[in-house]
Each structure stands twice: as C-alpha cells, then as structure tokens.
C-alpha cells in the first residue's frame, strides 16, 4: 500500500515538472525522485552563456535548475500534498561550471512544517568532488 502511494506521488511530481515551460526551454530533466529528495539535470547550451570570455553558463540558468529541483524536493516530501512556491532562495556560486558539461542538481527537503518546507541543494558538473553551486531556501507548503 505504501509503495503505491510513493509511486503515485512520484508520478504527480514527475507530471508537474514535465510541463513547466521555462524548465522545458532550459532542457531540464528529472534524474530521480525519492521521499523529499530529487535529482535533476540540464545540458550545456551555448545560448545559456553568461560570460562570453570564458563560455561559462549564466548563474541565472544554474539558479533556475536549483529552484526547480528544490521545489520538486519539497513536493516529493511524504507529508506534503499539492504544489509549492518559492518563498526565498539563496545560491552560492562556488566555482564556474565547466563549459560543455551537463549540470546535475540534487535537492533535499530536510524539514517540513505546517507552512514552510526547508530545502537545500547542490549543483555539480563532471567533477563531483567540488560543487559548482549550493542553494538553501524556503518553500510554501500546504497550498
């Protein structure tokens, strides 16, 4: 019975995030969904370049991936029902993402209260030892 619930929830989160126009235009895809934890990734694309000298993609694109991934993690929390919205999100850009490499994000909803979901996320490229960026934010719950 519990497994059916989890599968249903996974499907709901997958369906919700598959149709977001901005996520589609950035080429985002879901890698995995677990209870309160989601993996998402996005391909490198020259149209996303933010610094023409280094060909590194714009921080805004990384922010969008982390925001989407965090929202999905909040929604996939076992006690959360329905959609969510970002209250605030902070991203630390720890190093430039290596051009031409896919960017992977993993977000964890580590606490869920009646009104707020607290989420953290990390963005990586092929060098998984050193994160590209890290995010921390609060999301609306129980909408």
């Amino acid at each position, binding site marked *: 019975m519990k497994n059916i619930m989890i599968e249903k929830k996974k499907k709901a989160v997958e369906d919700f995030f598959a149709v977001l126009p*901005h*996520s589609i235009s950035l080429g985002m895809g879901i890698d995995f969904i677990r209870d309160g934890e989601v993996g998402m990734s996005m391909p490198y694309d020259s149209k996303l370049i933010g610094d023409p000298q280094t060909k590194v993609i*714009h921080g805004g694109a990384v922010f969008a991936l982390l925001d*989407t991934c965090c929202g999905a993690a909040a929604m996939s929390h076992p006690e959360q029902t329905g*959609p969510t*919205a*970002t209250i605030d*999100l902070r991203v630390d*850009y720890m190093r430039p993402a290596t051009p031409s490499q896919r960017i992977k994000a993993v977000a964890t909803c580590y606490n869920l209260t009646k009104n707020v979901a607290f989420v953290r996320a990390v963005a990586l490229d092929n060098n998984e030892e050193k994160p590209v960026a890290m995010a921390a934010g609060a999301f609306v719950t129980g909408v």
Partner: protein
Amino acid sequence: MKKLSPEPVALIKKRRNEALSQLIDSIPYISFLGVDFDRRGDEITAILPFKEELIGNPNLPALHGGSIAAFLEISAIIGLSWTQIWHQIEDPGLDADSSDNVRKFTLPKTIDFSVDYLRSGLPRDSYARAKVNRAGRRYASVHVEAWQDNRDRLFAQGTGHFLMPLNK
C-alpha cells in the same frame, strides 16, 4: 579665450547607447531570456517582456522562479558593470578607443545571489532596477528590485555579492 562648445547631445546619446549595447549583446543568456534595457542618463531599467517560455506553473499561470532570479541577476550584473564603465564612456581622453575598452571589459563574477519572491509573477512585462550599495576594489554588494504594474508593489527583490574583475 574661446570657450569649448558643449558636446552635441546626439553624440553623447549615441556613445552611451553603443557602450550599453556592446555590454548587453555580448551575453547570450540576456537574449535567451529576451531582457532589454532602457537608459535615461546613467540610470538603467531592465525590462523582461512576457513570453510563454518564462512561465513556471502553467495552471496559475505564473513566471518561473528561475526566470525571475535570472532577470534579477542579469539586472545586477549589468547595473554593476555599467557603473564601472561609466567613467570610461564619459572620459573624452578614452573616446577614440572607448568601444574597445568596453569590449574587453571583464564581467564581475557572482559570489552569491539571494532572491525574495514577494508575490507571484504575473504573465506580463517585468521591470527591474539595480542599486550598487557598495563597490570596493574586490567585492561589490548589489540590491535589485523588480515590479510589474506598480513601481511600489515589488514582486521580487534580490541581493547579490560580486567579485570585481581586475580591469587594468
């Protein structure tokens, strides 16, 4: 003694607009989102014309948090860079090769960026203005405000810290 006549206004505008376009046109992500800029003197307003690809939740519909954040971050970076190149544009001594100076200008790097989503972004045009609260030799702190219909009703605000490039 003959007084120098002031520079024709058309020439000043052309020079400033060209410098701003060069800065903006060099960044592909700005055209990907469709961000435009309006300049009045040294004040610039970023404009994000509405388009379908900016939507996050299609059921509401509302702008995606990621497109809002990117819009704010772009406004902050351009706003900060603009204050840095302003003296180059205005210094007549650099006039001959000022376009070259702008082209070689290295962009500030974002250290961190924090976004406050105050209300949901409606499917219409958005505007943003950045204020450089501190620009030191190495670090800068920039605050950005974004609104849609009313200047006083912000729908998002952001604060970011930037690493200043070592230009010259």
